[in-house]
């Protein structure tokens, strides 16, 4: 854990959007994109710069599902459980992914911070249901086996790079 948090990145993001309340969500989104989550240190800093109570910023950060106060994995897997995917069998895929990632009940991120598994409602690729999304890429017509293979491929890639 860093003792002294470096606010250079955060300040740059605030300057990009302008220090105003209406930019709160956009600022938080960019901070999250950089750190993969919202580090707790940023809240008092943001409060000072935007001139609003940190509670208000917390209230926004905790309201929207995309924000995370916990560190997220390098690969964020979004398993679509929209209507079309649900009807064509998204649950077996989700269960298989949980199994492959060895995620205990209630856990979303693996210990090694490599994977985070989330469900989303509809990625807008219903014609290809069921789909999953890993970071920004959508993978169509998934099966539990195909999803498991994606995970093992990513793991292999990480091991090679390591």
């Amino acid at each position, binding site marked *: 854990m860093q003792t002294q948090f470096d606010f250079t990145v955060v300040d740059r993001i605030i300057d990009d959007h302008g220090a*105003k*309340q*209406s*930019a*709160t*969500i*956009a600022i*938080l*989104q960019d901070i999250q994109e950089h750190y993969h989550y919202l580090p707790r240190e940023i809240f008092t800093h943001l409060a000072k710069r935007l001139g609003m109570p940190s509670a*208000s910023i917390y*209230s*926004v950060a905790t*309201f*929207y*599902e*995309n*924000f995370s106060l916990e560190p997220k994995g390098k690969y964020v897997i*979004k398993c679509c*459980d*929209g*209507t*079309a995917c*649900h*009807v*064509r069998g998204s649950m077996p895929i989700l269960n298989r992914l949980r199994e492959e990632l060895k995620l205990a009940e209630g856990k979303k991120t693996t210990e090694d911070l490599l994977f985070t598994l989330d469900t*989303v*409602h*509809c*990625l*807008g*690729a*219903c*014609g*290809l*249901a069921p*789909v999953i999304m890993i970071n*920004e*890429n*959508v*993978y*169509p017509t998934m099966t539990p086996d195909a999803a498991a293979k994606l995970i093992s491929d990513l793991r292999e890639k990480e091991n090679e790079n390591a």
Partner: protein
Amino acid sequence: MLKSRQELIDIRKEYAKYLTAQQHKILVCAGTGCIASGSLKVYAEFKRLLEQKGLPCLVELKKENEENGISVKKTGCQGLCEMGPLVTIEPEGFLYMKVQVSDCEEIIEKTVLNGEHIARLAFQKGGIVRKKQSDIPYYQKQTRIMLEHCGHIDATSIKEYIAVGGYTAFEKALFEMGPDDIVKTISDSNLRGRGGGGFPTGRKWSQVARQKSPIKYIVCNGDEGDPGAFMDCSVMEGDPHRMLEGMMIAGRACGAHDGYIYVRAEYPMAVERLKNAIAQAEEMGLLGENILGSGFDFHMHINKGAGAFVCGEGSALTASIEGKRGFPRVKPPRTVEHGLFNEPTVLNNVETFANVPLIITNGADWYKTIGPENSPGTKAFALTGNIENTGLIEVPMGTTLEEVIYGVGGGMRGGSEFKAVQIGGPSGGCLTTEHLKIPLDFDSLKKVGAMIGSGGMVVMDSKTCMVEVARFFMSFTQNESCGKCVPCREGTKRMLEVLERIVAGKGQDGDIELLEDLADTISAAALCGLGKTAPSPVMSTIKYFRDEYEAHIYDKRCPAGACPRLKRIHIDPELCRGCSRCAKGCPVGAISGQIKSPFVIDEKKCIKCGACVSTCAFHAIKED
């Protein structure tokens, strides 16, 4: 930077000339669906191959293109998402499906250079090969006007949009019509909001135009949160300029100078294409100060959602743009009076704005010739589920459900039996066989307890359990309830609990009545539209499939055989060899028996996990 109307007219002529001069076009679908199937790789391969062969490859619309070139374009959604990546070759008009990188060479050699058709890549059904898009029943039965450019022009190029007549409506609105004329044309056309409610757009605009405030806003709702819907996504990705044009016309009509587009975070491609489109329009001088010397200023902003379904509700959406929690508020005052930043605001959805340029160009009378009198125009639907052709469709309002499913959709997948279609997402309801002849328009659907909603249509066959579908939607709304008002926050939770126990085989006498009672309270007392309609999927399934609820509750049986907890797992004594493998694999010790004689499953202990089924080498364990 264009400074006058004449400059825009001149440049349009020029671009149109370049576009018609393009002899051969390779149109690669770059909608979310096809990209997921690998269309960008196909696009890159076409470019690489053309360069390698020394053929003139044109990516951008410009003067040099007047010579005989081959253009490669990334287009918006071409419709048949499941058959992606889709590639259309012009001028032949051949539509190729599931195109792989390895097919590109053959397509260039045979089709592009020699005009030959490749039957292997064409749409085939029942032994009939359909060469062109216009030969395929899926397209023949549609009326694509709002989506006319989707799949035909480069979605990332303002030049192509202008070449096919883009921004003529905006031009007309700036120089030939006064604000009142625009509002009147939209009112006369009877265009109704495509976001679900069907509120007359003209009335909304005139209410905002009337407000005295000097600051007004135009907001586009691109927070298409309904699971199973992707029409707006396809418009934003495939023809972003058309939607911008609609918003700019609205700005001119109502005296607003700022437009905000709120797009959900799950649509990164739409955000990218819109940002690109706005930058292009600014560069050309179609957005900014004193547009084309008319004295009219308009600026466009994009806001990315952060994953809250409730932000599709008007007042929650504006709160979110303001950087607050996306809570809906009590109305009145309505958004037209106190909307974004407390100023009068026009809030329409993507499809509504995309219809506006058409109406301004062709007039209200033309628009009213399409579809029924009380809901004119077309409607885009996202057709998904257990149906042969899934994808994006556009049909005139008032088309019957039967035509959509059996005509455009090509019937049920694998010839299975039609059971119901869920329409309108978590706020909608289901339509069954008795509704096949019903015209799809705002008023007819309302009468039978469903709604058009934004236009997601999920087709279900006899293997889909309707109680489970109701539970699915309730779990969705419960999860997405913003928590501000008690009826929705607590009511949906209680309804979900009841539905969960019914599908788990623990339903009790009186559960159906309890659901009805809760639904009644929620729809009467919830704060916003999403809360009020949250019980609709449950109410509509109870109305049409009450027998399925009763079978779950009283007989502990799922008629569709879909609920795992209500499955009966038993061992066929004829096939069982008594090897004991299943008994060893059972996590709860529910299987017992003597070696070499048939084993049995204790129904009381069995948790229906199905682990035993796959372990049996003799296929003696059956689920029903």
